């Protein structure tokens, strides 16, 4: 491989160096486009540019062009009106994929000459949501980014060889930007332009390349199913994971399927890369990263990926081993005080997950008359079974008993919310404020519609019966079943929505309840409206049999 330093990427055009396909782009074209953008920005007197481009190659052109023109770049986290307003005073021009903003092909000027970029004058700002949710700007110099990509190449360059870099994460954040754009550009590795958020797309792209590597996140990696061609995928040179914690179970499954452990990267927009690990509990700091701890045990980071002399305080508690590797002990900002007692939420979450019934757990503080803990749970198969057989109270009481071995009574969760999966945001994270909003909110009363389709006037819906449905507490709390009256109500509500029915409820006919519907069930609902007779036909089915059916009579439509 022929490494070109980040600051020398615009020095001379290299037509033989491919960058990507669809459409094809080589280094000479990238060189020319970037220098045209540079000329255009200069001509317009732009000093500060906000960039959001979905295409990784376009982003590379915009970044290099801006730097060549001495323009500082901001990568906003999104393009919501509020975000735009937030940065309006710090940005001269927005270069994005949206029609009202400047586009990359607006810059068709005769290109500036090739030149070396100034490592300390070229600047990039990343945006992240601080722990309070308030967006935060993090400024980096080209030198910091250059140091980081060189360290990555030192570690893994040889093994990756000419692998095409395929990513499931956005390039707008530090991880995607380094791994999908800047590092491959310097290394001369081909890239896939688009972010591929689905495993099937990742597989299709992988098949098109003799060698490939994945830049992925836990959100995708833990949801990769048996539908993939794992023998073919096991040719992957390396699987990177970052952005959040990869569950041990997901890492283990990848190891079984791919015969290699995923390479997990620990870092943040603020710190840059801190450490990595591959199938080991301990994290190995990147070259040049110096770690220390404050009096609370929080990890402090100094590194060549930070401004000289800067020590970045993380909120992660850690135990540093004699050989310099370290273990993460959970986030310190997730240690809360309840009635003057300190409680570590990650510690209790880990304790919950050791119970057979719990697949994933997140805790938050519920502030009512008193502050207490609430738990957001994804139940395992056996947990769902326990819920169905013995009811919610028995389930939560058993889990409280289990936790008693780990904490004082005061910290035992009092509020429980059972969900099918954790509602992670697009960055694969679940902010504490979201957890707490869910805990304080009401339990669901409607089914989750997973899919819906219409054929010949009949609607077919795939429904999930929320494990935590509010109705399960009133009816047979020790053996929760979906009440018939709720089934009728759901059919009527969904029928009204999908078929635009306006008639008032006027009665029911031939109601039959044949099979029980229980928490967590996936069922189908079939809906058909006989307009002549004013009857809505409904039938719920599970995988093997009809659960219930009937006709709902509707009166004349309201005027």
């Amino acid at each position, binding site marked *: 491989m022929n490494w070109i330093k980040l600051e020398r990427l615009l020095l001379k055009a290299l037509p033989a160096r491919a960058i990507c396909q669809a459409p094809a782009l080589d280094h000479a074209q990238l060189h020319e486009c970037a220098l045209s953008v540079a000329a255009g920005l200069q001509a317009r007197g732009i000093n500060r540019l906000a960039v959001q481009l979905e295409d990784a190659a376009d982003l590379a052109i915009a970044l290099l062009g801006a730097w060549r023109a001495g323009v500082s770049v901001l990568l906003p986290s999104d393009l919501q009106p509020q975000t735009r307003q937030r940065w309006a005073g710090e940005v001269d021009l927005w270069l994005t994929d949206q029609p009202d903003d400047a586009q990359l092909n607006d810059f068709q000027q005769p290109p500036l000459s090739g030149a070396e970029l100034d490592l300390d004058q070229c600047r990039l700002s990343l945006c992240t949501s601080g722990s309070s949710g308030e967006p935060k700007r993090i400024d980096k110099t080209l030198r910091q980014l250059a140091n980081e990509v060189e360290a990555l190449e030192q570690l893994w360059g040889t093994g990756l060889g000419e692998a095409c870099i395929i990513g499931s994460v956005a390039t707008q954040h530090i991880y995607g930007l380094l791994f999908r754009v800047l590092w491959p550009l310097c290394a001369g590795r081909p890239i896939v332009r688009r972010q591929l958020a689905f495993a099937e797309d990742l597989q299709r792209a992988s098949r098109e390349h003799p060698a490939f590597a994945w830049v992925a996140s836990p959100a995708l990696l833990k949801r990769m199913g048996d539908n993939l061609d794992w023998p073919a995928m096991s040719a992957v040179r390396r699987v990177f994971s970052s952005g959040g914690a990869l569950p041990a179970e997901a890492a283990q499954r990848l190891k079984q399927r791919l015969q290699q452990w995923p390479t997990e990267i620990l870092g943040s927009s603020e710190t840059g890369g801190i450490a990595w690990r591959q199938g080991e509990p301990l994290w190995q700091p990147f070259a040049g990263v110096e770690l220390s701890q404050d009096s609370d045990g929080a990890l402090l980071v100094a590194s060549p990926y930070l401004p000289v002399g800067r020590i970045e305080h993380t909120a992660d508690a850690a135990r540093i081993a004699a050989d310099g590797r370290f273990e993460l002990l959970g986030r310190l900002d997730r240690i809360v005080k309840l*009635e003057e007692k300190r409680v570590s939420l990650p510690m209790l979450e880990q304790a919950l997950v050791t119970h057979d019934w719990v697949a994933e757990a997140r805790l938050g503080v*519920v502030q*009512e*008359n*008193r502050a*207490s803990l609430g738990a957001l749970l994804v139940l395992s198969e056996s947990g769902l079974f326990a819920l169905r057989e013995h009811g*919610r*109270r028995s389930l*939560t009481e058993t889990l*409280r008993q289990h936790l008693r071995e780990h904490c004082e*009574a*005061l910290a*035992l969760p*009092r*509020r*429980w919310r059972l969900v099918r999966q954790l509602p992670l945001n697009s960055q694969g994270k679940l902010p504490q404020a979201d957890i707490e909003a869910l805990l304080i909110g009401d339990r669901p009363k409607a089914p989750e519609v997973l899919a819906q389709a219409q054929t010949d006037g009949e609607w077919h819906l795939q429904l999930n019966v929320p494990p935590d449905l509010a109705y399960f*507490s009133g009816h047979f*709390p020790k053996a929760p079943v979906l009440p018939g009256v709720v089934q009728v109500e759901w059919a009527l509500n969904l029928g009204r929505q999908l078929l635009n029915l306006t008639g008032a409820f006027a009665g029911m006919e031939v109601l039959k309840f044949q099979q029980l519907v229980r928490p967590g069930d996936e069922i189908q609902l079939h809906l058909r409206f006989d307009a002549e007779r004013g009857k809505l036909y409904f039938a719920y089915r599970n995988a093997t049999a009809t659960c219930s059916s009937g006709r709902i009579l509707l009166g004349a439509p309201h005027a």
Partner: protein
Amino acid sequence: MSELNTASLVRDIKLLIIDALGLEDIGPDDIGDEQTLFGEGLGLDSVDALELGLAIQKKYGIKIDADAKDTRNHFTSVASLAAFVTAKQPA
């Protein structure tokens, strides 16, 4: 006080406990009249006792005598709380 009134007071106090302490998945019938409320038993803690003390005083317009030694004994069970409220309430 008649038996009927006692039964309704006991039920009211159970509802008050559930409501004031935000207990989930527990109905009045799940709390025994004589069941120990704190520590083992229903599993309430000292902060709940404080909350419950406030709620009882507010709802029934009574005062817990801060100087009496045995005040907290009234909080042992729903039955003892009912007896306490009955005794304190103006006739």
